[in-house]
């Protein structure tokens, strides 16, 4: 369940980063169409919310929130690194 929570947070942040014009342009090319942007944002926030649910299931009410915040940090860092080095690694 902890792993599920981490993966959900990772997916959520990745979707949210793609919804941002700068990162969309770097990875996919061009600004995101408004509809896709909205969908990415919704999906991103939904994944983060589900990550919270998974954390609560894994650790219980009091520790779940703490753990979720920790996972958010742990998930945002690889997304940041990916957004930094992935576009550069591509031809």
């Amino acid at each position: 369940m902890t792993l599920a929570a981490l993966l959900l947070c990772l997916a959520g942040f990745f979707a949210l980063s793609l919804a941002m014009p700068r990162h969309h342009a770097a990875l996919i090319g061009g600004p995101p169409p408004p509809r896709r942007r909205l969908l990415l944002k919704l999906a991103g926030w939904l994944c983060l919310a589900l990550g919270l649910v998974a954390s609560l299931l894994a650790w219980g009410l009091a520790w779940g929130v703490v753990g979720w915040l920790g996972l958010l940090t742990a998930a945002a860092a690889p997304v940041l690194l990916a957004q930094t080095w992935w576009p550069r690694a591509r031809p």
Partner: protein
Amino acid sequence: MSGKIPKALGFRQSQAGLHTWTGLLVGWILYLIFLNGAVSYWREEITRWAQPEIGVTRDVETVARGAIAHLQAVAPKATTWSISLPDERAGGATATFREKGRPAPRRGVDPNAVTIGPDGQVVTPRDTEGGDAFYRLHFDLRYVPVIWGRWIVGFCTMFMLVAIVSGVITHKKIFADFFTFRPGKGQRSWLDGHNALAVLALPFHAMITYTGLITLMVLYVPWGVAANYPSKTAYYAQSITRTKPVKPSGEAAPLADIGAVLKSAERAWDGGHAGLIRIDAPNDKAARIIVTRRASDTLVDGRWEIVFDGVTGQIRSQVAPTSSGMIARGGMVGLHAGRFAPMTMRWLFFLSGLAGTAMVATGLVLWIAKRRQKLADPARPHFGFRLVERLNIGTIAGLPAAMAVFLWANRLLPLNLAGRGDWEVHAMFIAWGVLLLHGFVRPPRRGWIEQLSLTAGLLLALPVFNIAAAQHGLVASLRSGDTAMAVMDLTLLALGAAFAAMAVGVAHHKPAQPKARRAKTAPVTPKAPATPARKAEEVEA
């Protein structure tokens, strides 16, 4: 920032100035606090690593029985026995006793205390503070009276809180730049890195700083207590009451079975664990067994106690945290220290702590990176610039090296050296002093490379030494299933590799060109490159 002061500063500019100077003034101490705090999440594991003689405890009951057998043999008529039990993370138990008219020594080693190994037998581990050395350094500092240390740490923590709030206000594009890191752009990269380390772990930074102040709130804000209690002693007497010792009846009676008592305590706490056993008037009809709950059991750091009849083993009374104020405070202390944290969460705490350490380090380096271009004569920087630059080397690279020296001293100092535990700590501070000095006498670039390489070498060589010279190396630990020991060695290797990457990064960096290399894995990043252009420097820092 050091130039002319504009006539009217905007709100954000004023916050930027506040952020820069609150951060800089106490930055080096904050780095020490953050680094040692992060490391202290492994306090028990480091102590175990530092005392490889003890081994891993698998069955607490065996240890408790062994401790009582020892105490029966050496002090059957003592007024009190105490046994601190190990948890899954700690090594052995400590058993000690007090006799009438002989109080515990106020400081130094308790001659009555022995360590009980996993098999219930007495073991003599090497004299070391282990993880406690870093833990105490985190809030007491060293070589200053404890109360001074705590005031200094509290003062710096308050600055940290100001720096966090003003930093968030100063950050222009906290959401737009959320996933942004632009390497190879000099000052820009340092700012990006500083921002990312701060923003991504912001919940942790804010929580840890605030709860850190709460842990010592009675010291820092004494007036609530002063207004409501006649004296501090009276306050502590009410808030941290101790079960009063019993008077022996003089009539002998056999002690209740400790295994049954521990099981009964576990039931009463819904599966909680005993952390401390105190036995008053052992082998007397009036004997009492007081069992205190493990601190790592619950989020709320507080006193859970069950008093048992020492002969029948029946529960006499129970104490649990009840006052909502104490629970709120206990919850915050528990959150700060992470004593409750399961393993995954402990890693998250540790990594967030390292992120905080790196945040402070990048902030300190950024101060230099921003000002380097502004220097009137780059060959002869002004005093403040030189001071900060040199202190950065001896602290950011030097302190981790000194902490590694502590671990080396733990392995190398002769076992029979008088005051061995103290000398481990002295070795750490002597090393740090030398490295601070080294930072001032070497050219900065060489200083960074040499100190980062030294840190990397010391960390990487430790696990190798453990395999070669001690019987508790990585291979032996893995074979015997001693995970904590193995993971500690592996973590030292990973940290060593990170410092090696930083040293290589600085060595390959060409100061003339604005092309910085930045070690990806590095928790702390090396020296700043010269930057071609500075834009909007008033606002961002």
